[in-house]
């Protein structure tokens, strides 16, 4: 299964898919994450995983306006970005389990999952690590003369990293078509971001002279609507823009996080619940939604089962790809 592209579901005229389709994509990510969490707890997925529960609307809403030739650079919390950009669900689970036929042949795992063929330039284990890569990718689009763009996702915690500031300056200075998308969940690992930075992204963007927009990141339609406008602007003007979405990190920083530091008592805002009740309000039959959810669950189950049957990679094969081979285009 692949999260289908806008072209493949025939919405070339609409600016973004209808809510039912956006909801379907969000459910796919949530179900994938649910399985990741369970498989991690069962020891089937090793390492560190950071789930994106609560932030699905940003992945789906932003990606709804992107084309296959647009690129994204993601973060340590990148499962939703990867799937929404078009990484195949089979390659995804195989990679997280560290299998030979995973998206990265089991060498990257959750924090480095990538699919260059769909313009997904990688999750990133380094906070802020993807920002300048997206900047370079946007410059490549511009120098090539295309109207493509690059998107870099980053968390509010990354705002304290110097590379974000360097990149904002250069993006505006060199008018590079790059969209900075901040997923503001209020957390920098175990610390509230309010204890980490002295500024707001809005004021920071203003200081660099970059257009800034924000929206409720739990409402997928609002994310999609705003992104559609801003992406159009970036495509036309070939310069940067900043988008900030308020989101909720429903789960711990990583799986296994005891969250003893956490004292936010309000129930989490759930973008899926919001979309679902909107759909019901608009007359979509609850049974139809349930059927869709079941279908997605079984499809993900199939992907997980397939990944379990995949083989482990070997060090002999891995060591052959430390370097790209001279004279061979990768």
């Amino acid at each position: 299964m692949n999260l289908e592209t806008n072209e493949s579901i025939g919405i070339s005229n609409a600016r973004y898919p209808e809510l039912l389709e956006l909801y379907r994509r969000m459910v796919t990510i949530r179900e994938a994450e649910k399985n990741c969490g369970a498989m991690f707890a069962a020891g089937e997925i090793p390492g560190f995983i950071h789930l994106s529960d609560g932030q699905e609307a940003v992945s789906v809403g932003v990606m709804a306006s992107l084309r296959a030739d647009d690129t994204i650079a993601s973060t340590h919390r990148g499962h939703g970005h990867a799937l929404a950009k078009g990484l195949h669900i089979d390659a995804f689970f195989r990679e997280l389990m560290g299998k030979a036929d995973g998206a990265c042949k089991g060498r990257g795992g959750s924090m480095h999952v990538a699919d260059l063929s769909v313009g997904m330039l990688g999750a990133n284990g380094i906070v802020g690590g993807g920002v300048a890569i997206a900047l370079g990718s946007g410059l490549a689009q511009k120098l090539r003369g295309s109207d493509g763009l690059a998107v870099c996702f980053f968390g509010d915690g990354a705002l304290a990293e110097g590379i974000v500031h360097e990149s904002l300056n250069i993006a505006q200075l060199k008018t590079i078509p790059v969209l900075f998308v901040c997923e503001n969940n209020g957390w920098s690992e175990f610390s509230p971001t309010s204890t980490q930075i002295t500024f707001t992204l809005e004021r920071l963007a203003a200081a660099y002279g970059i257009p800034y927009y924000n929206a409720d990141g739990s409402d997928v339609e609002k994310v999609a609507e705003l992104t559609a406008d801003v992406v159009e602007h970036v495509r036309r003007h070939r310069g940067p823009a900043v988008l900030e979405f308020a989101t909720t990190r429903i789960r711990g920083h990583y799986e296994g996080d005891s969250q003893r530091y956490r004292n936010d008592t309000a129930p989490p805002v759930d973008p899926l619940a919001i979309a679902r009740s909107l759909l019901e309000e608009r007359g979509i039959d609850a049974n139809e939604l349930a059927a869709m959810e079941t279908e997605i669950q079984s499809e993900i189950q199939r992907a997980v089962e397939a990944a379990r049957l995949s083989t482990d990679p070997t060090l002999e094969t891995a060591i052959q790809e430390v370097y790209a081979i001279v004279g061979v285009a990768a």
Partner: protein
Amino acid sequence: MNETRFAQAINRSLDDALARDSSIVLLGEDIANAGGTFAVTRGLLDKYGADRIIDMPIAENAIAGMAVGLALGGFKPVIEIMFMDFMTLTMDALVNQAAKLHFMFGGQGSVPMVVRTQHGGGINAGPQHSQCLEAWFAHIPGLKVVVPATLDDAYALLQSAIDDPNPVLFVENKALYPMKGVLTDDLPPTPLGKARIARAGSDVTIVSYGAMVYQAMEAAEQLASEGISAEVLDLRTVQPWDEEAVFASLSKTHRLVIAHEAVEAFGVGAEIAARMAQIGFDELDGPIMRVGAPFMPVPFARALEVDYIPSAARIIEAVRATDV
């Protein structure tokens, strides 16, 4: 024949590469309008325009990170980091991103970028403008490290570095920039990873690279007057280094000295010495000796720096210690 300076050989190499391949772009601080802090990129802006010769603000980490994105986007960026000391500010982009990407993404994509920078003392630039840090990068799987000594190599190895699909660090020695010589026309391609016999000899092998090759040559010259025949091997590429050539020379001379300007401890010489002790043990007639800078920051004062940088005399001392 026309005399050329080392810096001009690099300039010509960049010029020819830019002319033959439109995917090559240059980025760096003061490289376009100003023509480079050491004038290596002079004239390129006028010839190739601001879309290809790109002046950047003072933001090394972003410059290096952008090169990764450009490389993934089908370009071959050649970035200039003004002093090797400033490479500390590119470490995330180079070490965590560029070096690992091809491997970490399971062989998807590659990062054909070149980082040109310059190392070395000799101009009293002091502790933060003189360091030779190449061993750091040679330690990172996924990076290649080239350190040319001659004009021809500066030209030809840079061509190979640009065409290499991997991130390559191309390290120039600032003391060599004004060096005059003849740049051979129509040089054949010079692959990375192949050493050059700078002087053939039979009694002892002196392995070196970059500017230190000239100290090694001077040492060999003096040793010759005493009847000791030293072979000088110019590594040219530090990662990957030409193990076969070093072993072949050792098998002939049975004595080995490794000399570099970088600090001796944990350096390139340590790796070569360890490897040769392992695979060349039976060939050795004496201890492997290393010559490098003492374990201290590069000092500023003339009186200090001149003693700090390894000299031909120190190489000769090391040769004697191999028991020739």
